[in-house]
């Protein structure tokens, strides 16, 4: 008796499972998109919530990461299809091995929008670090060697005309560790996106001393990337993903950067973002944090090739990536507008 009941149950479970899977899998491509819990990842979240991906026949599943590096590795291994992060040494190394490609641009420094800020600890500020030019012989916090922070520190040194080794970069692995070190005055300076910078400079321990946009021209902060396999064999899927993402980008810019969207629609978009960003806080607390310091994301995921090339050259000059890496290996420019 029990055996029959079990078998019937099993059959029931199987048919429901089949019914559940059969419908979407027949209709849409199922892809995984890697995100970090940062507002700069909002376009994918908006595109998914507003059904822009569904319209492109793509079924998106989000995979959350704590850092950019594991996301790049997950894309290389095929566990994740698309991601959006800063160009790091790890990303370029993987591109050199022929497994991932940059296919578009995302966050970019633009003159009219507040960009990344250069911060100094109060102790260093009082000791004479009033502008980025004073950073010579001072310490600068970075997450890891070859991170975007490392690049920005060296760009400041280049432009201010002192040697790169005269700005002492301190690898501290994680953003919270950098914040703790900056607040307690154990490092002298750091650069970070405006929403984090704004929260820090409100306190007495941290002072703003400059802007990154003065040191890096048209800085392409983050890029969209995918596996080489997707970029070569599933061009159609990549194009549809970018089309869906582009609509999400337009909404994000309209709502949070240009603020041309009605308050009601903006609130709806903040609500969507809140599901993944600052989700550990109640909406009314997270709302201002999500809205603060939004930076422009390129319409149509357009890519600033010159900026990417500059970053690649920096990685090579520091010996952080193999010499043989070329722009062709790193970037596939066939999908989006380049500038």
């Amino acid at each position, binding site marked *: 008796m029990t055996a029959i009941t079990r078998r019937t149950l099993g059959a029931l479970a199987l048919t429901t499972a089949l019914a559940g899977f059969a419908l979407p899998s027949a209709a849409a491509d199922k892809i995984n998109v890697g995100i970090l819990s940062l507002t700069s990842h909002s376009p994918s979240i908006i595109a998914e919530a507003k059904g822009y991906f569904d319209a492109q026949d793509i079924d998106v599943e989000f995979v959350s990461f704590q850092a950019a590096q594991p996301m790049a590795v997950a894309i290389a*291994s095929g566990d994740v299809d698309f991601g959006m992060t800063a160009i790091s*040494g790890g990303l370029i190394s993987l591109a050199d091995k022929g*497994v991932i490609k940059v296919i578009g641009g995302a966050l970019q420094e633009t003159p009219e929008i507040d960009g990344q800020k250069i911060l100094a600890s109060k102790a260093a500020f009082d000791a004479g670090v009033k502008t980025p030019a004073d950073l010579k012989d001072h310490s600068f916090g970075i997450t890891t060697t070859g991170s975007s922070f490392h690049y920005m520190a060296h760009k400041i040194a280049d432009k201010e005309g002192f040697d790169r080794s005269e700005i002492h970069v*301190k*690898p501290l692995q994680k953003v919270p*560790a950098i914040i703790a070190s900056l607040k307690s005055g154990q490092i002298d300076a750091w650069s970070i996106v405006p929403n984090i910078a704004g929260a820090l400079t409100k306190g007495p321990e941290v002072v703003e001393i400059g802007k990154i946009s003065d040191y890096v021209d048209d800085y392409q902060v983050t890029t969209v990337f995918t596996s080489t396999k997707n970029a070569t064999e599933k061009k159609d899927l990549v194009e549809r993903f970018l089309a869906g993402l582009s609509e999400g980008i337009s909404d994000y810019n309209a709502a949070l950067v240009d603020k041309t969207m009605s308050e009601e629609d903006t609130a709806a978009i903040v609500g969507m973002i809140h599901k993944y960003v600052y989700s550990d806080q109640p909406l009314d607390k997270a709302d201002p944090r999500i809205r603060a310091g939004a930076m422009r994301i390129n319409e149509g995921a357009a890519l600033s090739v010159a900026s990417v090339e500059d970053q690649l050259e920096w990685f090579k000059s520091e010996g952080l*990536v193999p010499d043989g890496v070329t722009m062709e290996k790193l970037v596939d420019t066939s999908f989006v507008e380049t500038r």
Partner: protein
Amino acid sequence: MSHDATHEQPATDAATANESGQRPVPFRGGGFVHRSLGPVAPLVFLAILAVWELGSRSGFISPIALPAPSEAFGALVDLFQTGMLWKHLGASLYRLVVGWTLGSLLGIAVGLFIGLFSLARAGLLPLVSALFPVPKIALLPLFIIWFGIGEGSKVATILFGTFFPTVIATYGGVDNVDRNLIRMGQSFGMSWLSIVRKIILPGAMPAILSGFRISASIAIVLLVAAEMIGAEFGVGAYILMAGALFALDQLIAGVALLSLIGLIIAWLIGKLEKRLLSWRT
């Protein structure tokens, strides 16, 4: 292999015994003794390396999954040629030696207190048990505030990591000293200090030294964690940098360096054991 008994030796005795009509008694001793087979360890090591290299060359092992040993060796050669090897090793060995020495000395002192005095045992043992399982890596942010991002926090991480196992090994060793020897010392009228110095300390030494083996390995494990914070040089910092850049050849080269340090330390402790424990034979 090492546990086989000896058979050949009694053959001649048996022949003479049979003539007088007595049952031969085979020699049953021997065996259960480890013979040192020198070339086996390097052979196993080389065989694994050869299989790995072949797998990488033939493409069976993808270069993303694991770099060929020859590439990792190339990274080591690069390190050596640029002179960075000594900078990294120097920085790491300094942290290891200072952290481990201080941790071990403090550990032995506290361990002896716990082993010898009931008051210390009642007061400190629960504290040790409570603090030993706390992952030192979790305390890193606190260590930054307490000890700064310089050498302080790195040495402290290793110190705390080696302190607790040494305490436990030491008081365990003191507890296991043969009571009869202590009673004998007492009946010969030895002073308390003499008993501690001449009976308890040497008696606890085997346990303390095997504690050293464990704490030295823990120190090496913690080196990578210690060098997460603001380290420009050091083998751990090198490994972390290689990970961040996804430079797998450098990653494996760094890990090989840590293994090498581990092997050398184990060899040194082996030498120390031979010297300090010569009374056992």
